């Protein structure tokens, strides 16, 4: 089916300009964050937005696929662009809305697909643990507070705003290239983050993304396989230029992804799903209240179902180039 959805709900505030300095999440600024915790390239972190703070977000994920003679016309590349807005409702609860635009391009002779897909809504609750015990994220944290274990729980769902019955140029409907799931898909995840030292931050994520069955206009009833993720990232504060409000962090991320088998008309489909591990080296830069991340995501281990019959799916990428930019205001 080659659904190849974007990994978006887990982004949260990972790309927030870290509290720049003293607010927890985002100190930010944190801003802020010239000295605060680092953040992953793609995985979720435990940072939540400051109360009343807004986040504008852009992510571009371009996947280039391995190609095989038997699969002609091969899927050539896919580009997933996501726009997002976040708002800090309280110091410990942030709300997000994302709108994705998908482009899937095949070799000459193939059928391409592009357009706006299902928007999604998500909420994240941040909490922490220190010598005083467990508590929701407070409104103000010192850099020393930011060194504590921080956690979050996030949940969200897509809304069927896209076109699940998007027809390709030959009039057909390919659920793997549709622009919506037809019904809400939901996600649930937990994160844990800890500054291991004043320059090294560990971020962990476990999350799942589940789909409902949907009957397309073609009569085919499809349920995409569930996605389960375990991610770990290390961000190292390598360069800080306080007078320029600039910070640069090399980041190394490891992602484990397990995808269930898609089901068509109640039957598991061959050549779908599997397990894989991605390595994502990259850099994250902070400049004033903006943050930019760039990483290359490559599968380094795969155990795909009927692997020799899969092309253009997760685990079959040559690489994925991931760029994100976020602005706190």
């Amino acid at each position, binding site marked *: 089916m080659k659904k190849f959805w974007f990994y978006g709900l887990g982004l949260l505030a990972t790309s927030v300009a870290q509290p720049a300095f003293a607010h927890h999440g985002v100190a930010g600024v944190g801003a802020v964050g010239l000295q605060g915790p680092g953040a992953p390239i793609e995985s979720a972190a435990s940072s939540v937005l400051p109360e009343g703070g807004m986040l504008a977000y852009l992510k571009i994920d371009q996947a280039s696929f391995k190609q095989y003679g038997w699969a002609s016309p091969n899927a050539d590349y896919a580009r997933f662009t996501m726009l997002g807005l976040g708002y800090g409702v309280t110091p410990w609860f942030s709300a997000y809305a994302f709108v994705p635009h998908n482009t899937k391009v095949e070799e000459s002779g193939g059928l391409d697909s592009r357009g706006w897909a299902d928007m999604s809504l998500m909420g994240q609750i941040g909490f922490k643990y220190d010598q005083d015990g467990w508590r929701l994220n407070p409104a103000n*944290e010192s850099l020393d507070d930011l060194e504590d274990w921080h956690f979050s729980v996030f949940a969200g769902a897509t809304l069927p705003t896209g076109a699940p019955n998007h027809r390709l140029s030959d009039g057909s409907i390919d659920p793997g290239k549709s622009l919506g799931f037809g019904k809400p898909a939901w996600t649930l995840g937990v994160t844990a983050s800890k500054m291991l030292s004043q320059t090294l931050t560990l971020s962990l994520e476990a999350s799942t993304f589940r789909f409902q069955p949907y009957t397309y206009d073609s009569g085919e009833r499809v349920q995409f396989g569930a996605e389960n993720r375990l991610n770990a990232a290390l961000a190292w504060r390598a360069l800080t230029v306080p007078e320029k*409000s600039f910070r640069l962090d090399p980041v190394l991320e490891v992602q484990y992804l397990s995808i269930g088998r898609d089901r068509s008309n109640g039957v598991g489909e061959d050549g779908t799903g599997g397990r894989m591990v991605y390595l994502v080296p990259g850099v994250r830069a902070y400049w004033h209240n903006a943050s930019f991340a760039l990483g290359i995501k490559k599968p380094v281990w795969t155990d795909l179902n009927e692997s020799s019959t899969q092309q253009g799916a997760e685990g079959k990428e040559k690489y994925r180039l991931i760029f994100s930019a976020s602005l706190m205001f």
Partner: protein
Amino acid sequence: MRRTLSLLLCLTSSASFAHDLWFAPEGNDYLLLQGHRHSGHAGADTIDYDGRKVSGALCLDGTGKARPATPSPSAPVRFAGPCAVLQADYVSGYWTKTAWETKNIPKTGIAGVLRSWHSAESVKRIGQWIPAAGKPLGRGLEITPLRDPLPLQPGDKLTVLVSDDGRPVAGLPVAYGDDTRGVSDGEGKIAIRLRHGGSQLITTTLETPLTDGKADRSLRSATLQFEIAP
């Protein structure tokens, strides 16, 4: 958040060039010293200062009873102890910076003034934990530990209260040694992690406009001092 950033940068830069003020126990007495003994940056261990600028001090004994502590007339100023809590003020007065020099005088009549300020510092040392040590003394800008800090070890966090005349002050940058660690919250509180044994110095600065015509700004600093096991 932007305000926080600018405050932190301000304190960081000022802290980089400032000296510390602390008490050194000597028998039952205490010497008020200035210098860089506890600083992370270079500088003389102790520096000379004008003992006449030590404007006042308060001593709480082991029962919490307060008495004025009379400073000796010359530097380094000596206070008679013992004191469970000892607080003293050092007012260096007006400072005026021009393109050529910085002088310890008001800006009145000076040409080419770039910046001028009035500087006052205070230091409070907790030598013995008593209930009164966990509350502000109520004399000017002050940092107060909200629990007994003396048994703490490196790595532990200590929540302190920043107050001015006993009232909590929000949004003030607080530094541990030379390193600004954040700003006080809406209740004037902030948690600081102790990173080394021995003498601990936690500092804050409050900058406000002055309208007396002698300087543009008032800079008041307060230091909390205590010792933990090395």
